[in-house]
């Protein structure tokens, strides 16, 4: 517990030093707010499963939810392996994953004020979309987000292990992002997809990262049991594979540059 406290306190102090960069990341993730305008306008003139106001609320929630499931461990891990700076962490009796987790968690805290400000601006621009989610929905969405964060973190951390074999391991994240873009509900609610596609995506972790938490906030409900099961299965499998790759990766690690 003392370790967690010290790691989080110092990591938060470090993240505050990088607040300008973090705020730029937040501003760089406004894709949902751009799509908000497009979909809201389209919904006014066509037959869509969501009304114009629902689309606005949907994409505002996507913007918020995405802030919590945004993971960047692969870039940090790749840099540590390629530069040899992982060595310092390997020399200490603490698995490096705890440092990565602490920095991700504390970075969320630094993001919050700007995220809140952007949401307020959105509601000023679209006052008809203003609503307050029910406390129970917020609670359920928060629980699902914690699970989604863990699953997404371990999936990306597993892919990070490729840095032991390739100097450009982060490139795989680009491929992941394309699939994530379409299947998570980031560019469109899954309601607009054909039923077979939707059924297929339910077996992947993607819809549980954004689409279902957003639906919970909107009061549209979500298959919580299945969400927990699918995320736990993917996150658990990623954890096991990561441990396996970690052991083999350390055999290959040459601590170059140090």
């Amino acid at each position: 517990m003392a370790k967690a406290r010290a790691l989080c306190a110092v990591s938060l102090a470090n993240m505050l030093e990088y607040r300008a960069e973090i705020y730029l990341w937040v501003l760089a993730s406004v894709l949902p707010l751009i799509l908000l305008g497009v979909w809201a306008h389209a919904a006014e003139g066509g037959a869509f499963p969501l009304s114009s106001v629902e689309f606005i609320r949907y994409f505002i929630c996507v913007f918020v939810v995405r802030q919590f499931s945004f993971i960047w461990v692969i870039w940090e891990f790749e840099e540590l392996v390629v530069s040899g700076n992982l060595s310092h962490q390997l020399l200490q009796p603490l698995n490096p994953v705890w440092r990565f987790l602490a920095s991700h968690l504390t970075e969320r805290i630094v993001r919050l004020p700007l995220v809140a400000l952007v949401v307020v601006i959105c509601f000023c621009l679209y006052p008809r979309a203003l609503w307050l989610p029910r406390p129970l929905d917020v609670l359920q969405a928060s629980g699902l987000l914690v699970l989604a964060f863990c699953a997404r973190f371990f999936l990306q951390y597993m892919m990070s292990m490729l840095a032991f074999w390739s100097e450009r391991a982060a490139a795989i994240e680009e491929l992941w992002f394309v699939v994530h873009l379409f299947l998570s509900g980031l560019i469109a609610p899954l309601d607009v997809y054909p039923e077979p596609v939707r059924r297929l995506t339910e077996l992947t972790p993607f819809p549980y990262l954004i689409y279902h938490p957003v639906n919970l906030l909107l009061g549209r409900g979500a298959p919580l049991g299945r969400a927990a099961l699918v995320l736990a299965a993917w996150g658990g499998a990623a954890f096991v594979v990561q441990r396996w790759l970690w052991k083999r990766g350390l055999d290959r690690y040459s601590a170059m540059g140090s």
Partner: protein
Amino acid sequence: MAAISVSELSKSYRVGVKQPGLGGALRYLLRREQREIAAVQSVSFEVQPGEIVGFLGANGAGKTTTLKMLTGLIRPSAGRATVAGQVPFERKRAFLESITLVLGQKQQLMWDLPALDSLKVNAAVYEISPREASRRIGELAEMLDVQGQLAQPVRKLSLGERMKCELLAALLHRPKILLLDEPTLGLDVNAQDAMRRFLREYNQRHLATVLLTSHYMADIVALCPRVLLIHEGKLVYDGSLSGLVERFAPYRQVRLELSEPVEPSVLRRFGEVEAQDGLSAVLIVERSQLTETLARVLSELKPRDLGVSDPPVERVIGKLFLEQNLAAKLAPPLGKDGAS
């Protein structure tokens, strides 16, 4: 029991061989040619608790690779090493708590935060109570004379102050075995001297074992009664520093204060001209020809003053590193004190 025990330790890497140009790139795509590099070959030595040992060798000789194997960062290809009674690559908690590695060109302190923040994390990681951590930080900061710098962001510190803080962070858990890779790299003369004094004091106060690599021979001369010399991955000397100089420096340095200017071509008739500045000159003369050369210098050049001394250790080691066939020169394999 030895603090560090190394037996027949080897490490080889496979590296891709790629010819330059487009043709080379295409050939590499179709057929990857690989070459095996033997970075360390059958190295054996022991270091006793409390010893300070210098680890010498030219760039790429295998020093850092050996240190990496001793700290468990990389797995040896063959052989066996135990450090503090543990196998390094298993990286057990007891092992990690017993050692530290200081890399002169790398830093573990968080760049934008005061060093105290990194020390706070280190204390928690090594399960040192806040009170004990504060006591140790105070003691080490006093020894290193950095009490005033610990609260400043690391990026604002000078290189010397930063290195001292790095050392403080590396020693907070009070390791018994210190593996130091170029700890004085880039420091000015005063900072180097302060670092050496600190290492000697730490070694005496905590009976710590130190294995040190450095390109600054002054570090080795000041700290290491015993040196290991590694060349092309092989250990070629294990013994005293004076023994190394005696064995591999069969020449003397002759300092001259001339009575009148002399052309360099004239001086070269007496030996290698190491330096010449006005009426001062330094010659390098083979030990076997010293008496005869001195007699010739005195009769032909009539210097106002003349002095003979051992060459600086830097020069001896520097020349050793340039030897193409050093390993062959040193064969058969050397034992302790270079006795063949």
